[in-house]
């Protein structure tokens, strides 16, 4: 038995976002490295210097080119994703809603504390829905704060709403930190669940004997 889980548009968007984030995060760290602070320029207090291997672009100008190119991929794929989910109704599979709340703790207990395995009725368990919903929300925050930082004059009202230019920079950075927390967990879960689960994000299909999901 096989189960069809991922429509082609969703798969396309997933990999577009994966590639975009793989470029945007390291190039963003290279940009941060040009002024690794959220305070005054004079006197400058550096927070930390990102290690060389985490950065992309070689210097600020190179990193900005990567960032302003792959931001388009992230924005377009996010819009396509949201529109498709909304129109197709497929969002019910992913969006974390109030009735999923009760299932979070049993699932966390199963994953992390050797608890009993809860009965699963949906494609994604409540913990997954929570993680995916937060991750997609963080990408949305990254896009909106990124646009505000790119155009703080044209979008001055947006910058004002976010508490000013420096706070907007902090929100943008914080959204990346959130994504950095999500991605390793996501990769570990995919690795634990094996090839069929990984392949399903390419083909749409998952072989059903592998009925647990990541």
């Amino acid at each position, binding site marked *: 038995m*096989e189960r*069809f889980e991922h429509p082609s548009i969703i798969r396309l968007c997933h*990999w577009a976002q994966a*590639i975009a984030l793989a*470029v945007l995060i390291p190039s963003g760290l290279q*940009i*941060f490295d*040009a*002024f690794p*602070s959220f305070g*005054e*320029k*004079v006197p*400058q207090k550096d927070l930390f210097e990102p290690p060389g291997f985490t950065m992309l672009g070689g210097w*600020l*100008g*190179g990193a*900005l*080119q*990567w960032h*302003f*190119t*792959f*931001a*388009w991929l992230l924005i377009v794929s996010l819009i396509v994703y949201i529109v498709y989910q909304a129109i197709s109704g497929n969002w019910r599979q992913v969006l974390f809603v109030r009735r999923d709340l009760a299932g979070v703790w049993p699932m966390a207990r199963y994953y992390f504390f050797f608890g009993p395995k809860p009965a699963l009725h949906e494609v994604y368990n409540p913990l997954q829905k929570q993680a995916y919903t937060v991750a997609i929300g963080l990408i949305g925050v990254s896009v909106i704060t990124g646009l505000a930082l790119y*155009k*703080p*004059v*044209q979008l*001055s009202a947006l910058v*004002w709403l976010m508490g000013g*230019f*420096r706070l907007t*920079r902090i929100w943008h950075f914080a959204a990346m930190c959130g994504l950095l927390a999500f991605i390793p967990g996501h990769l570990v879960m995919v690795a634990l669940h094996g090839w069929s689960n990984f*392949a399903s994000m*390419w*083909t*749409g*299909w998952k*072989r059903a004997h592998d009925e647990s999901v990541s």
Partner: protein
Amino acid sequence: MNLPKLPTKRTRRELLKMTPLLGAAALFLPSSRDWLLEHGVGLSDRASETTFRSMHLAPTFSDRAVTALDQFPLNSYLQDDPDVDLEAWRLTVEGLVQHAGEYAIDTIRQLPKITQNTRHVCVEGWDVIGNFGGARLADFLDRVGADPTARFIEVSCADDYYESLEMAAARHPQTLLCYEMYGQPITREHGAPVRLQIPTKLGYKQAKYLMTLRVTNVLQAKRGYWEDQGYAWHGGL
């Protein structure tokens, strides 16, 4: 959901569907990577020009919000003082203007004076609110009879820096030929005697120590000191 027919050659199909990975791998080839980045930045610049609102004002701030002058950062590219002879200084104006020639600072000072507290944003990520005084570049362009249909201005500086701007930003009401900061003549390290001050643009567009101003429809190959090394040309905020 209307399910596709159950596949039989699962693994082969799974592998075939991963061919987009080859596209991602192309990013590591210098030629395709350079092409992609050039077009990505070009697209961003075109979007910046299209969305630039020529009458939308950058936020202005109260005097209390202004950063002290001694905390206003310096980011000169060569030296903080290119030794401009302030007495003999003239701004050379050329290109598509009715009155080409050399203009003394008095010509600029005689134009209506604008004073504004605006945010100076550096491409590095820092920002500072400064107090700037000067004449609108738009007023000066009218004074020298610049062609109203011309598309760009180009400036060159005493320290060999150079920049170019599209006319929408050059004629923006907050774009100044700035000769004062904090109520005093602009100091040498901040660009004496005259610098561009453009609250709608990043700092690298706001050239210091202006020496020549050219009005043109065609940009020269050298479009800006940093732009020629890879920064985006528009640099609009």
